[in-house]
């Protein structure tokens, strides 16, 4: 084999391999390498010029038009509080207390961030929808089957993630999202 042929082969492999690895990393989901908090993960630089190239590319793919942290924070969970992947055939209790921001909602997505078809036409649970007790504690159920109380359907999704939006988060949450008090996600059982 001639020298130029060796260069062409290896450089072509490098070109394809480098691009493919970048695509693989970008498609790895919104969560990789970000700030963890229990089952949730978030980033501090969404939507800003400070974002690293990989973070910006991931957000563009999975959360285009995300707002910067002073306006809203996005916490995403693809696993329950015990570290198991969220499974559309399973039921989960999501339990939390007062969240340190102006308003919140939890939305269920599949794939790169798409609402899931379901018979109840329900895709999120917002702060205004839950009944908190005297201590501010609230809960709702994520399940493929209809549940009493607040219920977020998984529809036909095999895998899903939950995104907690916290609008106008407090300065403490913005500075230390890893310390924010966020809901737990507890698996109850699977079909």
């Amino acid at each position, binding site marked *: 084999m001639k*020298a130029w042929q*060796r*260069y062409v*082969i*290896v*450089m072509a*492999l*490098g*070109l*394809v*391999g*480098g*691009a493919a*690895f*970048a*695509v693989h*990393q*970008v498609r790895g989901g919104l969560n990789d390498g970000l700030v963890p908090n229990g089952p949730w993960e978030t980033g501090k630089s969404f*939507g*800003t*010029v400070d*974002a690293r*190239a*990989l973070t*910006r*590319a991931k*957000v*563009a*793919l*999975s*959360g*285009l*038009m995300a*707002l*910067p942290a*002073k*306006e809203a924070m996005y916490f995403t969970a693809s696993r329950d509080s015990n570290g198991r992947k969220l499974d559309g055939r399973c039921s989960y209790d999501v339990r939390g207390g007062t969240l340190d921001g*102006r*308003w919140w*909602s939890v*939305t269920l*997505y599949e794939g*790169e*961030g*798409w*609402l*899931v*078809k*379901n018979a109840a*036409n329900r*895709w*999120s649970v*917002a702060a*205004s929808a839950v009944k908190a007790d005297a201590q501010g504690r609230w809960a709702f159920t994520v399940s493929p089957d209809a549940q009493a109380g607040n219920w977020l359907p998984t*529809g036909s999704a095999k895998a899903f993630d939950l*995104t907690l*939006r916290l*609008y*106008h988060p407090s300065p403490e949450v913005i500075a230390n999202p890893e310390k924010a008090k966020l809901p737990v996600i507890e698996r109850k059982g699977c079909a």
Partner: protein
Amino acid sequence: MMRRWIFPILAGGLVALGAYQSTLLATPYALMYAALQKIGGDGASNRFVFSKMATADNQPIVRPSPDLSYSTCVFDLSKGPVLVDVTPVPGRYWSVSIFDARTDVAAVRSDRDTKGAPARLALIKQGQMAPAGYEPVLLRYDRGLALVRILLANPSEFPAVDAIRRKSTCKQV
């Protein structure tokens, strides 16, 4: 034998690094371009499009919130500044955010920032002037997106909110 491959492999590694970084850098531009084409596909720049609430059958952008009403304006500054006037919806969260072609937020103003007053933004490039009464927002690219979010406590509020949000305008000077 192996010696012959050392320099080609080094060159291939450099090409791989370049391809990796180029792909990462190009991704936001490509996805934003696709989003602008989708949202403003009929060529309607510099005017608001008032979307229906997001559902599983209506998802104009990835990871939409079904609790927010979205109004979008694909802007183009190539022929002059674009003015964005947002009519406030009393007693609820709303915001207007300006995204550039790289997906970065150039500005965001909410009801908290304006204390309930209208938001009046002039989207300009270097060398363009904002008219009096408008807050200038300097952009590095001609094209981008203005996005108004309004929070609904429940879907039955949509007709009332829709009537108010349609008073907002996005127009070229």
